[in-house]
């Protein structure tokens, strides 16, 4: 009873925060901009969220996170549209949607594919939010008892699990994470006051701004990568023919795959801590195995759209549990959101969850509202979004450059930051060329300071003995998890299983 009463008061508190005209407007602006970004080719959710963070600088924390969550959700939605109509995924988590979505569009069933993707995403997103409401306080309650050693080990585990999934080569991904940690050590050490890696440059005293690195590595890098096509490239897209409405037969096939996708996605994103892209592939594998119409998969089966799209949204919602309750991002995009929250001066984690319920529950309520808005925004207006694909690539790239400069300059009003950002743009391009993933760098930067702090606090507690990380059971468990993630081909085996289920379907 107590639990229910608590739950209910939290929910009403949340909606009380979210349902003000200003916050509703922000939520709408967020999902609108997010969808825009998701639809535009070449701008994934990571680039998008990073580019739009400066918009939140003038806002109070509550308002800022509502706007950001809207962008995050919107970008996840928008990506599926390009997958279905252009066969170009806007982001890695919509790669699988291309397989059946584009086939459906070729058969003149683009409308139904879009509807299935949107409704599936809506149901999955709502489910994930509900789970966050039910289990969030519980997870935060457990984490509240964590001391510095547990947090340190949790961060090590979080970093390694994400890193082990982040690229073709473990060595490269790990190096990227460490590179991020190394960047995080720049600036004045806030425990001893000693400057580190400052090179006598007063502007580096506060360390390297994370947004400088994020926008350089993602947004400007995107410009360099696309340079080859800049001259006169035109996107070929299919038109939406026929009705958006799904037939009774479609609905009958829609439900089972939607439920499977949602559960699988939530498990992958919320519990295993892996990102939305993994979730969508796991779901496609699941459909291949258990769907009644499995032989149609790859030739325009509605299950192939519903499952993965539900899964990636459920995972996106699920990884917010990690971010809000533990303060550990499970994906590149949530890492960028964490960085943004730190810039506002909020440290997400169990303390925030318990101490600032209006913030957390306001965000959760606005996720519901945003989800509903997205459904309305996406289905009837899909024709308008598709028109965005006609924007010539060179204009898009110039816009990205412009917004990057605008955004980074507003952080510190510093020209030096602009040059550093361009430098990171070049580094990002080289990394991409060498196939070194960029997301772990961001993860490292965002977690680096806190990780070092927790490590030093732990050693103060233990009087310098490293055993403290091993002698505490939870900490030991988390470290073992990290070891498993790195050494054992544990994840590879899952990958292997997925790969087998995936069969001969063309990847990407």
């Amino acid at each position: 009873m107590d639990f229910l009463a608590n739950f209910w008061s939290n929910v009403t508190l949340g909606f009380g925060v979210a349902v003000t005209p200003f916050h509703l407007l922000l939520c709408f602006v967020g999902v609108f901009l997010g969808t825009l970004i998701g639809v535009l080719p070449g701008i994934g959710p990571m680039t998008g969220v990073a580019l739009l963070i400066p918009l939140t600088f003038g806002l109070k924390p509550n308002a800022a996170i509502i706007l950001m969550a809207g962008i995050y959700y919107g970008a996840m939605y928008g990506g599926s549209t390009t997958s279905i109509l252009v066969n170009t995924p806007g982001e890695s988590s919509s790669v699988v949607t291309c397989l059946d979505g584009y086939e459906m569009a070729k058969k003149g069933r683009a409308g139904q594919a879009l509807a299935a993707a949107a409704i599936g995403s809506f149901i999955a997103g709502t489910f994930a939010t509900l789970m966050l409401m039910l289990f969030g306080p519980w997870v935060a309650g457990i984490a509240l008892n964590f001391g510095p050693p547990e947090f340190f080990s949790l961060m090590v585990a979080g970093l390694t699990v994400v890193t082990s999934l982040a690229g073709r080569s473990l060595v490269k991904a790990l190096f990227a994470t460490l590179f991020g940690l190394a960047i995080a050590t720049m600036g004045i050490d806030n425990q001893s006051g000693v400057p580190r890696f400052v090179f006598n440059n007063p502007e580096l005293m506060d360390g390297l701004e994370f947004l400088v690195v994020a926008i350089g590595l993602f947004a400007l890098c995107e410009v360099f990568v696309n340079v080859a096509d800049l001259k006169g490239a035109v996107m070929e897209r299919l038109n939406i023919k026929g009705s958006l409405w799904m037939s009774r037969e479609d609905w009958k096939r829609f439900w089972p795959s939607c439920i499977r996708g949602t559960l699988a996605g939530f498990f992958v994103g919320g519990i295993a801590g892996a990102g939305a892209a993994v979730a969508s592939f796991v779901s496609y594998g699941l459909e291949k195995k258990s769907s009644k119409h499995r032989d149609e998969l790859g030739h325009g089966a509605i299950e192939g759209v519903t499952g993965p799209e539900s899964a990636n949204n459920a995972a996106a919602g699920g990884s917010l549990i990690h971010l809000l309750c533990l303060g550990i991002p499970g994906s590149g995009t949530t890492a960028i959101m964490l960085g943004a929250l730190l810039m506002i001066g909020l440290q997400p984690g169990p303390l925030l969850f318990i101490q600032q319920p209006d913030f957390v529950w306001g965000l959760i309520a606005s996720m519901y509202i945003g989800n509903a808005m997205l459904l309305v925004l996406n289905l009837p207006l899909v024709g308008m979004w598709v028109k965005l694909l006609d924007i010539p690539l060179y204009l898009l790239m110039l816009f990205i450059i412009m917004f990057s400069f605008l955004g980074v300059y507003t952080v510190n009003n510093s020209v030096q930051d602009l040059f550093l950002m361009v430098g990171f743009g070049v580094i990002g391009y080289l990394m991409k060329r060498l196939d070194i993933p960029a997301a772990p760098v961001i993860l490292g930067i965002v977690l680096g300071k806190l990780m070092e702090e927790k490590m030093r606090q732990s050693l103060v507690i233990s009087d310098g003995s490293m055993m403290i990380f091993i002698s505490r059971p939870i900490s030991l468990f988390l470290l073992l998890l990290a070891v498993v993630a790195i050494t054992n081909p544990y994840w590879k085996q899952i990958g292997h299983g997925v790969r087998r289920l995936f069969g001969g379907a063309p990847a990407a």
Partner: protein
Amino acid sequence: MKENREERIASIVLIIFSAVYLTSAFFIPMPALKQQLGPGAFPITVGFAMLILGCIYAWQQFRGGPPPKETEEEIEKRAAIIGAEEKIEKKTDLKTMGFILGLMLLYAFFFEILGYAITTFLIFMMGVFYLDRRHLVRDGVIAVISSFVLYYIFTLLLRVQLPAGPLKFLEY
């Protein structure tokens, strides 16, 4: 084998970077107040780990002998599964890339000197001229909107400070 040469160079660069980082980590001064773990310990750990990984990477690139167990196709599939970013295989247009890089550096250099609005307009038009000059009027209008109009939206509506440059007299 050109691919491999790039990776070999990269691995050496990474080793050098790690070594420089590690060495400078050793020179981080100790604070007057003795602590369990000084400010240097964490960077030194990170530096060591980077150096080791850099060496493994180099070893992977330089060892001859048997190719990696996974076939190229398998790697591709796994990459798709784990959502790795797609690799760039297109032939790169170095001239355009150099132009874009130059454009960015100019943008950064003049950002405060000429102010946001003027610099953005000029950079945008330079980009348009170089990349595609078939729709000059349309693109010119877009450039004006994204420089001057956006400037006022940000400074007046969102209260975000942007450099005004010579246009300072126009304010308020």
